[in-house]
């Protein structure tokens, strides 16, 4: 550097004439240029390394797949293939040719707004009366047609009781409808003297009609059975989904002794309850993973008021006081050990009143006495009041009665709880029969197979839509926070959830209802796990402004200096070079 300056000084001082700062005699040095440009280049080379080292680990989420599946589900909601078949076991000559069409029309006429989990149904009619066998119906239902040859059934049915007929028809349906046993709903129509309609506990029903020629009434009966019962479960009201977001439900059974100084009751829930409820829990397994627990509590009075009724000689709780019955301050019900954070707990409470309000009854809104002495609160659970025997006699005994709830009473209470469980899941606690000739058989699982199918359909649809909307919200959230770390666990959960949702959808179209319900539970649980992952806290993650604010105070001045220096050096070098070149050119010219 010293040479350059002295050389420059030399050129400017030594030339007296003409060419002073335009010429130089020596080649300009490159040391300074080299230094500054190499610093600039090292900065440029290091910039990608800096960006890579400050990169945040974001596990890639399949947003495109999520939005495409979500759009697909919203535009065509999952439709479950159901096949209805009516089988006439007695000779029948229909007055109009297309009975199946009229039945289908009747069902469709009653169909209310599109709710989640509706059937995409096909109807077929078969007349199989020994001598002749005629099929009529949808071409799409050809795979599940009834095989002919069931004429002997009419005689076999004669004289059996309803349970026996149910089992007989079950074996007939299983044998004669190919592999479609789980997806076909059948009704058998027989001509006979005493008219009845009985809906079995599997997937079939049978009708005994006097006059098969009256086709309108036949169509309307068949339509009622298929549409109101098999397809909609006999309910008008909306659906409840009392299942936790991780697919678990805990049924918590409590026996409350209101005032232990009057009497103390215990119960043997473990034996009786578990034996009676085990088939119910197994049947509901595709809907939720249900566990049970029970406890006995003392000093648990209710918090509403009851009135003494002279006529009944009992204490009565009015319907408008029921909302205040549950005394949440004294009833410590939510002490479940097995319920994790996102499970749903349903409380089933047996309330034993104290001597000062015994016997205790509930009055319905219509003014009658409640037959069950019980009520439910949707999404919370149910309460049943049990009056100890002999409490109206008001014995003046000093000693405290310690007793066990008799097993028969416990069984009756469990029947009430099953009814309440059905209400909590959106069905009717008992079958609403439109006429005395109608009968619906009860099942030991608490739900008949056709009701279970309805539950599976509703829950599958709800779970799928819910999981997709959760995944959609998650991907929107992740995209809106570009500097948020997305852990691998979240990415994996999202992938598995999508996989389960796709599997559920394909199972729906195949008609395997319980597998699709299980996959949909899994999809929803994984989606919720991903969305509620504790690492997604927007407040912890810096925005782009923050990132710049960290790095700019160092890099801005430094890069400014480096750039300026490089630019200055390059300009100076080229200026000096041009001076040297003109000097060389002039020397060549002069020599």
């Amino acid at each position, binding site marked *: 550097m010293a040479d350059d300056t002295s050389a420059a000084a030399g050129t400017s001082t030594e030339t007296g004439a003409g060419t002073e700062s335009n010429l130089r005699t020596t080649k300009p040095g490159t040391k300074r240029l080299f230094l500054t440009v190499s610093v600039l280049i090292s900065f440029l080379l290091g910039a990608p390394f800096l960006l890579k080292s400050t990169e945040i680990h974001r596990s890639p989420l399949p947003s495109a797949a999520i939005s495409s599946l979500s759009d697909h589900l*919203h535009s065509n909601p999952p439709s479950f293939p159901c096949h209805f078949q009516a089988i006439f076991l007695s000779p029948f000559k229909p007055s109009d040719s297309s009975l199946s069409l009229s039945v289908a029309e009747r069902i469709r006429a009653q169909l209310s707004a599109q709710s989640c989990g509706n059937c995409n149904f096909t109807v077929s009619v078969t007349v199989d009366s020994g001598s002749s066998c005629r099929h009529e119906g949808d071409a799409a239902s050809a795979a599940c047609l009834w095989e002919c040859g069931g004429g002997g059934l009419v005689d076999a049915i004669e004289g059996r009781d309803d*349970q026996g007929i149910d089992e007989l028809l079950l074996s007939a349906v299983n044998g004669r409808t190919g592999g479609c046993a789980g997806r076909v709903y059948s009704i058998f129509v027989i001509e006979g003297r005493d008219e009845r309609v009985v809906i079995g*506990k599997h997937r079939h029903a049978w009708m005994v009609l006097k006059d098969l020629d009256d086709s309108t009434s036949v169509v309307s009966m068949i339509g009622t059975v298929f549409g109101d019962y098999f397809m909609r479960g006999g309910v008008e009201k*909306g659906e409840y989904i009392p299942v936790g977001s991780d697919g678990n439900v805990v049924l918590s059974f409590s026996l409350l002794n209101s005032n232990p100084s009057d009497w103390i009751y215990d119960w043997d829930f473990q034996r009786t309850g578990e*034996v*009676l409820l085990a*088939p119910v829990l197994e049947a509901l397994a595709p809907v939720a993973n249900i566990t049970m627990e029970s406890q006995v509590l003392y000093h648990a009075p209710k918090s509403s008021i009851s009135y003494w009724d002279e006529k009944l000689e009992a204490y009565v709780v009015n*319907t408008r006081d*029921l*909302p*205040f019955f*549950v005394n*949440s*301050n004294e009833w410590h019900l*939510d002490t479940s050990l097995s*319920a*994790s*954070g996102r499970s749903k707990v349903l409380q089933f409470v047996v309330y034993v009143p104290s001597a000062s309000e015994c016997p205790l009854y*509930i009055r*319905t*809104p219509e003014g009658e006495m*409640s*037959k*069950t002495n*019980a*009520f*439910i*609160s*949707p*999404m*919370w659970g*149910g309460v*049943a009041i049990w009056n100890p025997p002999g409490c109206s006699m008001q014995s003046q005994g000093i000693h405290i009665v310690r007793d066990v709830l008799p097993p028969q009473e416990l*069984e009756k209470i469990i*029947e*009430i709880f*099953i*009814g*309440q469980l*059905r*209400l909590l899941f959106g069905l009717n*606690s*008992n079958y609403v029969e439109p006429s005395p000739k109608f009968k619906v*058989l*009860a*099942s*030991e699982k*608490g739900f008949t197979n056709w009701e279970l199918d309805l539950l599976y359909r509703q829950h599958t649809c709800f779970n799928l839509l819910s999981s997709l909307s959760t995944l*959609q919200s998650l991907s*929107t959230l992740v995209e809106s926070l570009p500097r948020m770390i997305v852990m691998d666990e979240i990415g994996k959960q999202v992938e598995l959830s999508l996989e389960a949702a796709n599997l559920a959808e394909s199972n729906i179209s195949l008609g395997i209802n319980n597998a699709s319900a299980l996959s949909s539970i899994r999809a929803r649980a994984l989606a919720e796990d991903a*969305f*509620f*992952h*504790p690492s*997604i*806290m*927007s*407040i*912890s993650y810096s925005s*782009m402004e923050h990132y710049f604010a960290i790095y700019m105070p160092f890099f801005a001045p430094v890069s400014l200096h480096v750039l300026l220096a490089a630019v200055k050096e390059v300009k100076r070098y080229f200026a000096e070079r041009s001076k040297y070149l003109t000097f060389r050119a002039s020397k060549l010219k002069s020599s």
Partner: protein
Amino acid sequence: MASDPKGSQLRRILLIFFSLSIILPLSSPSPTMHNNNWAVLVCTSRFWFNYRHMANTLSLYRTVKRLGIPDERIILMLADDMACNARNNYPAQVFNNENHQLNLYGDNVEVDYRGYEVTVENFLRVLTGRHEASVPRSKRLLSDEGSHILLYMTGHGGNEFLKFQDTEELQSHDLADAVKQMKEKNRFKELLIMVDTCQAATLFSQLQSPGVVAIGSSMKGENSYSHHLDPDVGVSVVDRFTFYTLAFFERLDMYSNASLNSLFTSYDPTLLMSTAYYRTDLYERPLNMVPVTNFFGSVMKTIPTDSAYPGFLVAHASEYATISAETETARVVLEDEADHSKTYDQSEKGLQHILDEWLKLLEGKLGVKDPEVLVAYGLGSMVLLLTISTWLSS
């Protein structure tokens, strides 16, 4: 970031389109029913001179419990350093009035987050539901799509922020973001936010989610004042906004149906020395039709059960009569298996048995009671033997 306006406009259009495509299909489900009420009561101050904030929160806790919300549906966040503070003249008692008629700390106060657990992060975790797996159920807001939530916050605040425990701040956009995420996951049906701080109305100025009604004790630029000083305790014991709120609720019980409008219009700006500002633009129901017990009390929807599920017991009995016969034979088979495994065990036990006997013999001979010492001796002697043999063979 200073990008070109066209690019940002395009992004904005895409965002609107995208959000519409989410909202439209999801707006079709029918309105949900009101199932239960939750309360989240947060006191964001600590230290003795902020006594009144803890008294505010505890008074509201007591009111809400009296009107029926149970402890399992109340999340109470307090620094909880007043009652047992060394400067408290009345140890273990907290009052909200100088007449000392009511001890707020008396019975059954269940504090969910206390002391240093009251942080902005925990508060936002409670609202959004993003807890670690180990957090117990009592510390979670387990609301669902039918819940009405009352969110009450008190402490020191300012323009668009609320100070937490003197170390951090909750910004209004953080609160708005948390509420937005709650709404997306349907964690509430309706939300009532009550804020008793200085410039309280600015805290909920950024809210956009539907179904939210909010009231603050003062507007931007105004302070909220304490009500009175208790000369015995030595500090102010209650704030004006909360004092008049409590006065309103003292007249009510579980069964009353005073409306939210009557509560909001009961605040007198001259008595409060600030303007209680409320916003209802995100709330569809008219305030005079909303009873206060919709948020402050607990009304369960009840449906009498008309019948049991008859035939269940009969069906169960008939189904399981056949099965019990099968289980009898199964039980016999199991017993055979148990016998078999027992004999197998015996033979194995035989070997173990011999070893035990040998050990006992050694113990007896050597007079050592502790078998471990015996084993140590055995090992030592083995090592000795090894060294001797190697020395000999070398």
